[in-house]
């Protein structure tokens, strides 16, 4: 009887430990590569094949593609000497566009400038410039309080500031697992907020603070690192019958629309300026996705509370982990026994490896954890990424065996 009570106590403690480990794993910027396939196909089946998703409103955004709006400018070496030319996003066009927007700064909800302004551009004698395009652009930006620029970290993790230092900005870097983007971290290195987080704070007038592994917003606990639910995908911009509103900057400034028409064109929308086609595409579980779209999706995840830890999710995970713990502390796992005695598995040559109790234990743990993860995705739309717990369960069972804690 005493042993049974001890087992219940150990099961509960272990379930809590697994819960903490899960949250810790969820905060890691990377994921187990083997879990990618499950996450990918789980997402595709639910969202695409079964259509179980609610798309964000198409009225909220306009995506402005600057992939082909380029200009040549001097490339300077570390000492500031010109060593050739480089291609950058056309600052004349951007300046012109932002000048138009600046005539009615509140006409549009918000402007994401996902264009990195790394180097200065000087006067172009061919254009008879009397003022640098950078000054013109800067002056236009200053009239737009709802504009935010993206910036990046250098390879040594120091900040690569844009040349326009006093324009609001947010980090737009993310990490990948096996070259595939999966998780988004809203605050990097404890204190560097990303653009989606800053945008969320601006648009919803909410305070969000990082506390330990989590973010706190009012009474809500949010995951700082989150497997992003990519709600707006490249398909929705380029292929779908009812596309999200997107246009090329070239078209908007072609002169076909006058300034009033341009303002009407973007009215009450979040304007996302970025390269949606050429240089800023990232591999995701849904195929190539523009970097600017990932920022928008990260914002949407925050807005929709997708990374919020709810009581129901907590209870679900605790129940699953309690059950897994209970099975882990059984002297003889029923599954192991069944497989080892199964004539079917004995007949099939390539499944015979499962008769090894250690391998079978490992595979069994991985399966139950993946099922837990899939359940969480189906019920709460939260992808967990907890496959590393397989190793923990493998070790804890052996420790329990050593301490003779089995029932």
């Amino acid at each position, binding site marked *: 009887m005493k042993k049974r009570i001890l087992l219940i106590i150990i099961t509960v403690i272990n379930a809590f430990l697994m819960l903490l480990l899960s949250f810790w794993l969820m905060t890691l910027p990377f994921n187990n590569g083997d879990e990618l396939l499950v996450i990918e196909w789980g997402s595709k089946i639910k969202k695409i094949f079964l259509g179980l998703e609610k798309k964000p409103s198409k009225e909220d955004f306009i995506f402005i593609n600057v992939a082909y709006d380029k200009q040549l400018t001097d490339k300077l070496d570390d000492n500031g000497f010109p060593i050739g030319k480089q291609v950058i996003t056309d600052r004349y066009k951007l300046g012109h566009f932002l000048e138009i927007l600046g005539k009615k700064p509140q006409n549009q909800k918000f402007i994401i400038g996902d264009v990195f302004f790394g180097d200065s551009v000087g006067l172009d004698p061919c254009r008879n410039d009397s003022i640098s395009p950078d000054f013109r652009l800067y002056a236009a930006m200053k009239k737009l309080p709802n504009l935010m620029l993206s910036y990046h970290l250098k390879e040594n993790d120091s900040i690569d500031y844009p040349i326009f230092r006093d324009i609001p900005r947010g980090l737009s870097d993310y990490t990948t697992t096996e070259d595939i983007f999966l998780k988004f971290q809203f605050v990097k290195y404890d204190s560097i907020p990303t653009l989606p987080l800053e945008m969320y704070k601006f648009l919803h007038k909410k305070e969000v603070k990082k506390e330990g592994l989590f973010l706190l917003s009012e009474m809500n606990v949010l995951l700082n690192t989150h497997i992003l639910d990519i709600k707006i995908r490249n398909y929705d911009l380029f292929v779908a019958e009812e*596309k999200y509103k997107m246009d090329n900057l070239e078209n908007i400034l072609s002169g076909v629309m006058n300034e009033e028409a341009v303002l009407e064109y973007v009215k009450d929308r979040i304007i996302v300026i970025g390269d949606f086609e050429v240089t800023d595409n990232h591999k995701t579980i849904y195929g190539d996705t523009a970097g600017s779209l990932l920022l928008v999706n990260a914002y949407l995840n925050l807005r929709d509370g997708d990374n919020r830890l709810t009581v129901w999710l907590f209870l679900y995970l605790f129940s699953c982990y309690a059950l897994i713990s209970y099975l882990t502390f059984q002297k003889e796992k029923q599954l192991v026994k069944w497989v080892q005695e199964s004539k079917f598995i004995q007949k099939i040559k390539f499944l015979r490896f499962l008769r090894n109790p250690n391998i079978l234990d490992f595979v069994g743990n991985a399966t139950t954890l993946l099922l837990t993860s899939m359940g969480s995705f189906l019920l709460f739309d939260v992808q967990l990424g907890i496959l590393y717990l397989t190793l923990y369960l493998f070790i804890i069972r052996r420790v329990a065996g050593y301490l003779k804690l089995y029932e």
Partner: protein
Amino acid sequence: MKKISIIVLFVLAYSYLHAQDTYFIQNIKGIVKNGSNTVKKGDKIDATSKLTFTKGALLMVSSQKEGMKILPAKPVSSETAYTLADLLPKTNRASTRGNFIQNPKYFENYFGDGVYCVFGDETQVKVNLTDYPMNKDSYFSLRYDYNNEIVDKKLAFAGDQFVISKKELFSIKGKDIDSSEIAEFALHYHSGTKKSPNLVASFMPLFISVSQELKTEIGGMVAMFKEETPENRQKYFNDFRRSIATRIAAENAQMPDEYKENLNYWLEKNFDLKAE
């Protein structure tokens, strides 16, 4: 009479869904009409507009509701099909086409049933005289509707070639007419032994003027590879031919993506450059 394919957009279901939408015309390839007016870059139309497209014609518009759109819209695959298609191996397809009309079955291939681009002001089309003898009683004509009148233009010929001339085609009783008013052209063969003419092809001739700069550039290129061996010359010609068509298309926004053209004839006439 076989008609040039016309696609009518917007007037039904589409206009119901997007009745309040405004479209700014950003670019045009081919010929698109809004009612009886030819659509031009910079026009503003609404979703209830009744548009007609010649085959291969395209419109790039900025829609107040949906942003940039290409019309006519291509059929859209569902995201499921799109995702699954990504898993399938990719295959390529190659095609060939003849240069000159050797027998009746090549007419359609030669002119297609969309836009036929004539580089310069006229072109000559070689035919097989056994199938299509040309003389006083037997000849080709291009027929079109202009201001509700049927105009049947007899095409001049010399030897085994008939001539399509811009000046001849677009003038009535010595007066030039507005070619944009004409929606379709039908090529007929009149046989001296039959009462009614045979329709052999329908297409929209589009006369393209090539800039002097491009002509000078092509002339320079032709001179460069005249010294080459026959094998190399043939290889260069094949590559060169495609790049010239692309360059001419880039100079002329009204050329649709899909068209047939008289490039070989034009190269031979202007540069004495024959396809070997």
